[in-house]
């Protein structure tokens, strides 16, 4: 049955034939709009449903709204022959007509303050949650140290490969590039003043003290911290963590400590690698861009660096490893709800661990100034 056959207008009497379906909506709207004036002028509209068993909701709603519009203008509406389903559809529209549909709540100055306060509160709550989580991790960790055989070594080795070995190419490449760029740019500036002989020292200090450990930590947070959060978060969503609990596993020693022990082992070596490849990058910059002999570069390095410089970076990395593993696992454990929560946890893990790593770095450099010979006055 074609749309045009379904609506028959006789004077002010509109009869509906057959089922008015969703795809008749456009025709219905045009039809009603075209004949609106007829009903307004006559002051009445008769709807005859006696030949119609039912009506789809979308055209029904259009028809209903049209009738309401006419009724408000004082047009008298009569309805005959409506089946029970049409009656109940119209009754339902009538019932919910006043329910205001608003997509978004009104945002005023008041709500902005509310959001700000809520944001601060959530952040502090997260930090305090992390604090307790770190306490539990420490507890589990001490238990592990006392009983080293209880450590799940296969899992530790697996995560060492995932977080350490597989991170080698990216850490080495990025620090090499960064070392080259820094060597070239600083060396070039220093050449102007005839001070290029200090370039190796500048580069060695900035890389071993800051750039090497920091870049390694950022990369590990991005690669592994997020992976920890996603892995545990997905398990949480699929109720696997609950299943582990029910089966009597200690979730900390199963999910958290193997990851942390693995990171504790690999982070210092990643930092060592980052240092070496950054300094090597400086050497390349010296040879290729600044006509700096390799032998001079190395002897200048030997004069500038002391063992503490290297060891300090590796010590810092242990702290970073604790932060990254804890934040990643904590964000994963906290996941509630569906798949979108996992995505949010992953993002939060990366952002918070980088934030805490930089904060820890700032605090530790205050200490470093006092223990490194030649820095404090």
């Amino acid at each position, binding site marked *: 049955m074609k749309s045009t056959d379904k609506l028959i207008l006789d004077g002010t009497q509109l009869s509906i034939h057959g089922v008015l*379906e969703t795809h008749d*909506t456009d025709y219905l709207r045009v039809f009603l709009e075209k004949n609106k004036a007829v009903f307004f002028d006559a002051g009445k509209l008769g709807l005859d449903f006696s030949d119609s068993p039912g009506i789809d909701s*979308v055209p029904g*709603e259009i028809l209903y709204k049209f009738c309401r519009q006419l009724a408000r203008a004082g047009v008298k509406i009569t309805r005959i022959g409506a089946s029970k389903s049409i009656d109940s*559809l119209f009754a*339902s529209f009538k*019932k919910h007509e006043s329910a205001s549909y608003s997509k978004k709540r009104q945002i005023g100055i008041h709500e902005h303050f509310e959001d700000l306060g809520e944001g601060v509160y959530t952040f502090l709550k997260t930090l305090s949650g992390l604090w307790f989580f770190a306490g539990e991790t420490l507890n589990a960790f001490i238990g592990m140290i006392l009983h080293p055989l209880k450590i799940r070594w296969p899992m530790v080795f697996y995560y060492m490969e995932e977080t350490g070995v597989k991170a080698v190419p990216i850490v080495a490449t990025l620090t090499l590039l960064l070392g080259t760029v820094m060597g070239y740019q600083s060396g070039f500036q220093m050449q102007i003043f005839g001070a290029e002989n200090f370039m190796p020292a500048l580069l060695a200090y900035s890389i071993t003290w800051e750039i090497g450990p920091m870049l390694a930590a950022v990369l590990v947070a991005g690669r592994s911290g997020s992976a920890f959060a996603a892995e545990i978060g997905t398990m949480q969503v699929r109720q696997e963590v609950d299943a582990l609990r029910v089966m009597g596993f200690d979730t900390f020693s199963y999910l958290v400590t193997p990851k942390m022990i693995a990171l504790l082992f690999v982070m210092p070596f990643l930092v060592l690698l980052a240092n070496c490849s950054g300094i090597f990058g400086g050497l390349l910059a010296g040879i290729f861009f600044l006509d700096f002999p390799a032998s001079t570069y190395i002897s200048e390095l030997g004069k500038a660096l002391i063992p503490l410089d290297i060891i300090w970076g590796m010590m810092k990395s242990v702290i970073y490893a604790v932060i990254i593993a804890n934040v990643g696992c904590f964000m994963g454990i906290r996941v509630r709800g569906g798949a979108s929560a996992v995505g949010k946890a992953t993002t939060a893990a990366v952002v918070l661990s980088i934030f805490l790593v930089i904060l820890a770095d700032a605090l530790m450099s205050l200490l470093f100034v006092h223990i490194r010979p030649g820095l404090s006055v």
Partner: protein
Amino acid sequence: MNAILQVENLRGGWEKQLVLDDVNLQVNRGEILVIVGRSGCGKSTLMQHMLGLLKPWSGKILFNERDIWESSQVLQESRRRWGVLFQSGALLGNLTLLENVMLPLEEYTDISRPDMALVAYSKLDTVDLADFADSNPMEVSGGMQKRAGLARAMALDPEVLFFDEPSAGLDPVTSSNLDNLIKSINKSLGTTMVIVTHELPSIFAISDRVVMLDPEEHNIIAEGTAMELKENSTDSRVRAFFGREEFTEKKEE
């Protein structure tokens, strides 16, 4: 009988794994057809083929006597006339129940948002959830999520409603309420329904006709009303499927 959906010589499955071999099936207008079978027999695969989510290796799926794979327009037009309730309800978590029900209206009609909202309200009324219109899916129970999913499936007054294991994960009372709802929608609106399930109480409560698939045959091995299959079948596989639960029989009497 008046067929609305026909499966003709369907051969299909996932990637290279054959699941269905030469299946013929007809769904009549206004009936509730239940597809049953053991796990892994291809019930869901058959439904995926009927919904045009999987392309048949060979054979045809006809909706209103047109092959749904004839062109992408036919497939799109057919899908507009179908509603599907997925196993988990598959509601979008970042939208309210009302907005979830409005989704198909947004996609397929160009009425204004307040108009959509009113239609969506009437659909939520049908499943008795109008009071929860502004809740998020996560805030309501599993049974309510299913009902909201059903309201969404009905948003465009479909000709055929598909259900993938509607009672999975629901307690017997909620499950039987959902069965009653399905049955009453079928009665009042005359919507054709295709239901995949293996819950015996549901099968007896709602089905007009049952087809049973078998994993070894890759095909339909029995067809009839639920009682016929239970009482008269000589096939041991059918008897094993229906035979083990006695209480359904008492409920029927």
